[in-house]
């Protein structure tokens, strides 16, 4: 694929627009889960190992608790830029060697940065596990910043920004809405970074970041696949245990104050299909309200049988597509609803229909069938997430990092089972209030263009 299938980057934002509910659901016995072993090294770094011999490969995911939420004006986007620099040379390996060695030994890698975390992913044949430990520990211990690489990588990230934000109408709208919805909390910062900051990062900024955030005590590593835990821990002792711990990074203490009224923004760009999105302040990933919101959003907009799809796409033809998204992070994030309006369509009408569906849910609550559907979708999603070694590594990381314990992954199905229709109804009324939301519309500059010629009207 042309896109960054292997590019060192995925943005939380990009993921946000593609996924369905990240839900799980009824706590079943998971084959092999009893073999998961953990170990915390003396320097504070935790390892979670899940042996799984289905294929002769390993997925190694290293999560650092740092993302654009840790940034400030002047260095926005630096968490993501740092992620790129993690592939660009250490004191012992020249820029590019990390990738050349890994690929030459049958491995592949990627990484992504979100508002909350930066995650490095290695996929490799189990026979080279030791070598991958060597590579991963080297960049945790010895990262170096080549001035020439910093400059060329700036261009790479700028190109990434152009594709995912500047030349993508949804990317543009979401970025502006995030910056509007948060007036105090750093979730207002776009993970890719504002253009002037992309042009402005200095090597000293990167060095500070490395020291503060890339410490073993700020990381958790998940190793899933064809491995023996004892052998993995031996490699951890050899390669990771000697990396010194650092003082805990400064906490993000700013809390977003309650929103006191609806905010609206309008973006003018070339567009045949206008866009509308709404974002409400809600809860942190670990709160029960987050689970309730996931169920609520799935009933509203997940799949062809959802309320918004049936009303806006099927019945009224007021949208080409609809969707929902919940930003699950350390701090209270946003719940999103969005719609692509047909060419020449009336954005106001689409908005009114969304409002009607939300009001109906807040007044009458979901049906019993809808609650069962959400549970079943969560349960099936839980199992689909565990079909691959990389899915397992991702799911373990999600629960260890955002919920404080990877074992909560296995409780997720029963937690979804426990969510009631009344809770969903209450959340629709208390969270999805106009005063608590930001509404964003993207439309063509002047008069909306005529529908495309040759359309099926």
């Amino acid at each position: 694929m042309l896109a960054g299938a292997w590019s060192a980057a995925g943005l939380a934002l990009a993921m946000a627009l593609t996924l369905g509910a990240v839900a799980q659901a009824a706590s079943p016995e998971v084959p092999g889960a009893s073999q998961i072993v953990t170990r915390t090294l003396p320097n504070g770094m935790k390892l979670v190992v899940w042996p799984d011999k289905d294929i002769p490969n390993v997925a190694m995911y290293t999560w650092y608790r740092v993302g654009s939420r840790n940034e400030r004006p002047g260095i926005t986007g630096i968490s993501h830029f740092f992620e790129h620099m993690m592939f660009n040379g250490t004191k012992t390996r020249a820029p590019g060697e990390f990738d050349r060695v890994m690929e030459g030994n049958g491995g592949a890698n990627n990484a992504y940065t979100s508002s909350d975390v930066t995650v490095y992913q290695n996929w490799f044949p189990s026979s080279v596990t030791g070598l991958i430990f060597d590579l991963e520990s080297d960049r945790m211990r010895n990262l170096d910043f080549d001035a020439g690489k910093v400059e060329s990588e700036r261009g790479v990230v700028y190109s990434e920004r152009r594709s995912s934000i500047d030349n993508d109408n949804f990317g543009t709208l979401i970025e502006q809405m995030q910056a509007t919805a948060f007036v105090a909390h750093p979730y207002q910062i776009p993970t890719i970074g504002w253009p002037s900051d992309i042009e402005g990062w200095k090597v000293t900024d990167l060095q500070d970041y490395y020291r503060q955030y890339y410490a073993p005590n700020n990381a958790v590593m998940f190793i899933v696949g064809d491995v023996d835990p004892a052998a993995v821990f031996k490699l951890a002792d050899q390669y990771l245990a000697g990396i010194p711990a650092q003082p805990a990074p400064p906490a993000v203490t700013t809390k977003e104050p309650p929103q006191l009224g609806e905010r609206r923004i309008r973006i003018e760009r070339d567009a045949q299909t206008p866009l509308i999105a709404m974002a409400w302040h809600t809860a942190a990933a670990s709160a029960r309200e987050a689970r309730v919101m996931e169920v609520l959003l799935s009933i509203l907009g997940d799949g062809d049988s959802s309320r918004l799809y049936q009303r806006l796409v099927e019945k009224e033809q007021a949208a080409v597509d609809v969707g929902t998204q919940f930003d699950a992070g350390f701090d209270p994030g946003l719940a999103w609803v969005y719609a692509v309006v047909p060419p020449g369509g009336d954005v106001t009408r689409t908005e009114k229909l969304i409002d009607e569906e939300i009001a109906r849910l807040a007044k009458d609550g979901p049906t019993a069938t809808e609650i069962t559907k959400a549970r079943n979708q969560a349960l099936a999603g839980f199992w689909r997430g565990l079909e691959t070694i990389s899915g397992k590594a991702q799911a373990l990381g999600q629960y260890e990092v955002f919920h404080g314990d990877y074992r909560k992954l296995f409780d997720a199905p029963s937690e979804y089972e426990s969510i009631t229709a009344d809770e969903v109804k209450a959340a629709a009324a208390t969270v999805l209030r106009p005063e608590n939301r930001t509404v964003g519309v993207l439309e063509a500059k002047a008069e909306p263009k005529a529908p495309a010629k040759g359309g099926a009207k």
Partner: protein
Amino acid sequence: MRSLALAFALLPMALAVGAEGVKFPAYKSATLPNGAVVALIEKRDTPLVAMNVTVRGGGLGDPTGREGTASLFTDLIQKGAGNRNAAQFAEAIENVGGSLTAGAGTESLGVNASFMSRDVDLMLELVADALQRPRLDAAEFEKARTLAVQSIVAAKDADPRALMSSYGDAWLFRGHPYGRSVGGSEASLAMVKLDDIKRYYAEHVGGDRLIITVVGDFDAATMLPQLERSFGSWRKAGAAVPTVTAPARVTGRPVLLVDKPDATQTYFWLGNVGASRTDPARTAQSVVNTVFGGRFTSMLNTELRIKSGLTYGASSSFSRPSQPGSFHIGSYAETSKTVQAIDMALDTLARLHKDGLDADQLKSSQSYILGQFPPTIETNGQIAARLADMLFYGLGPEDVNEYAQRVLKVDAAAVRSTIDQSFPQPDDVVLVLIGDAAKIRDAVKKYGPVTEMKITDPRFAPATK
């Protein structure tokens, strides 16, 4: 450098694991009375079942000028079938946490389903209904057609990377069936009538065209008679499976410039006719393409991204249908760097022809391919799709089981002959560029004759005379 040596010292071990570690799971297969081919694999590590139904024909059966017919047919079979209307059909799937999608490709169309094992009977019922008892309702047809048109328009407002192959194939294969857009264009979809869908269904969908694969947590002994009951007595398709002849390679460098006035980057696609799915040289092509444009450290990505920072990504790939499909290079760069980036891509292609691969690159590529292969057949859905693909192209399990040996057998001579035969020369590639035409129009004339269209034009290639 020390660790690089270490890396290659470890290489033989990695290769041995790749070679021995991957065996395609044993499958039970049968041919039903109407000619449908069925193949089953039990895999019980999760309580899920995946089903893949492939129907030979696909977009090749679309009437000329009404491209998108097969694709609309696959949209419509999800909008009411058997005793369920559109809403009821969606609810039946989603209420149990299942997924069921249908779509058309150039040479086949298909249904993919994934359900929890407790719902496997429902899955079979829904798939059988969709294929054998679709309602093909007139109101649903109008909605589906309108939505298909609007979705293309919406894609033109989004990241242009998603559109490159639609324009690329249309330009490279113009005049050949592979150049006809399977999803249709705004213009061709406007011409499709419900009668076209019904005729397509009668002529190009039926029991003799089916390949059904099921993988996951079920009992094969009961599944086989179930499938026979559900699909074995279905009528055959009324027409013969459409066939195509090999497309001719393009000489020279015809340029298609698609004007997107607000674009701040130029997105480009360069290619020529490449290879078929059963080309004896396909493994050697993959070994070479891995080095040239198939991974992060590839020659293309090294030049355009890693060394120069011109782009977020540059890559190349083969698309391999039953006759030779496209080999293409894709990347993008800031508008003012358009020519620099395209020149660099063409120079890199020239260097591949001149220098070939050295021994280290060959070994590195083989190791990478073998190391990354096992995760491609890890899930029920991946295995079901791979099995269907093998049956579709008449390949057996040796396609997987002997893959490692085939990869390792590629030697310097095979590399050289593959570069000569399967990779185009930089003077013979079609170019598709999406970008701000006013700013690049003159500069790109140097590549070849330029044909221009607007992104808002309702087609993916200029209208033919």
